[in-house]
């Protein structure tokens, strides 16, 4: 067996292990929080209370308008200057949740706006309150429409977690860097890292397909 082959086989498990220990839990947790933020933000930006629209608009503007890596550095390296010291995990979860929340709020807002006005009117003319209309009529239809764009946001998040290597978290990318330093095989090792990301995203894409099929059963 060639030397490259041996290195690749030896490296596979340590990199995958970092994926299972860091990349996946970080992505899932951040995404769950991001979705809560995204729904609240989307509704606030469509509300008729102008202060809500303004405050949440400001939030989206800032988090979409600045680089994710810079945000991560501000939270992890910057905030200690004003007395807020966060460990790398907490800093990562906060940053990724807020960043993905900003993007996903737009995906959700677009999906809600895509639902015909007649759906609101029909529900309101039955005498439903705003929250009843949202829960019973708008939310189920929004889920279907928002699946593709929100999965996009999720995929972006999964790949974006590779940035945590720069704030000391031992994710797949950092493990890859360490192995590269030892073996001098950057092409091989980084390709291996890329392949494992691709594997994760492939699983996600498959899940998206199943969910879409399920959510579209009434079409």
């Amino acid at each position, binding site marked *: 067996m060639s030397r490259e082959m041996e290195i690749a086989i030896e490296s596979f498990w340590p990199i995958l292990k970092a994926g299972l220990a860091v990349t996946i839990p970080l992505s899932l947790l951040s995404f769950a929080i991001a979705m809560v933020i995204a729904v609240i933000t989307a509704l606030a930006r469509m509300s008729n209370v102008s202060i809500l629209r303004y405050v949440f608009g400001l939030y989206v503007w800032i988090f979409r308008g600045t680089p994710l890596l810079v945000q991560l550095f501000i939270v992890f390296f910057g905030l200690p200057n004003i007395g807020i010291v966060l460990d790398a995990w907490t800093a990562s979860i906060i940053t990724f949740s807020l960043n993905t929340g900003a993007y996903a709020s737009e995906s959700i807002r677009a999906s809600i706006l895509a639902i015909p006005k007649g759906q609101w009117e029909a529900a309101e*003319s039955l005498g439903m309150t705003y929250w009843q209309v949202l829960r019973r009529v708008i939310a189920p*239809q929004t889920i279907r429409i928002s699946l593709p764009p929100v999965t996009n946001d999720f995929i972006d998040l999964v790949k974006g977690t590779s940035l945590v290597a720069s704030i000391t978290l031992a994710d797949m990318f950092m493990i890859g860097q360490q192995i590269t330093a030892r073996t001098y095989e950057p092409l091989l090792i980084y390709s291996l890292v890329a392949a494992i990301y691709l594997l994760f995203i492939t699983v996600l894409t498959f899940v998206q397909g199943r969910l879409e099929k399920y959510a579209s059963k009434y*079409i």
Partner: protein
Amino acid sequence: MDLIVQFSNVHKFFDGHEALKNINLAFNKGETTVILGPSGSGKSTLLRCINLLETPERGTLAIGDIIVDLSKPISKKERLAIRQNTAMVFQSFNLFPHMKVLQNVMEGPVTVLKEERAAAMEKGKRLLTKVGLSHKMDSYPSQLSGGQQQRVAIARALAMEPKFLLFDEPTSALDPELEGEVLKVLKDLSEEGKSMIIVTHNLSFAKEVADRILFLENGEVLFDGETKKFFDNKENDRIQSFIQSMQFI
């Protein structure tokens, strides 16, 4: 006859354009009123003001003992109270696509009226049978023809047991073959003595079913009276030309 819906000095503006000009009208219980008029005359707007899907800027709207001063902000409570007395059927049906037919009909009674599921289901089945669709109960709206969807929408409206049924061009999105099945349901309801207000372009239907005709143009009521008098009208040139132009379509 009991007086139910009353408009007093109602004005409605859209971006500075006055869509309804000083409307004073009463709609009575048990009556079928058909609202006619050219496009843009304000007939749909008038209908949509009855359940406050459009909110007029001035005047008073009364349904039974609920009286709403339209020049003031309307509370959620007032809005819901007005809507509980009416149910609307739309030109584009607006069924909830993610719910099966029976669920569509049960949704209002269960969510809004807080009826027991079993009772609401019983009522839903009965109403679907009435509009001839008991065999489509477990279908999704997308599996139905336009005429069938509109009949489900009528059952959904009836399930709320409203004092007034509002129809906004209920057959305009249907081809003539499907229009008939919906009009037949409307005729049956009218004959049962339901209180109905219908906006339509179908003159022969209006002639056959309406107890009363309202003719609107430019946001004003040009005619308000018995159906026969409207169609036999000899004095008003505008109404005569309207009726004639419709007959060539």
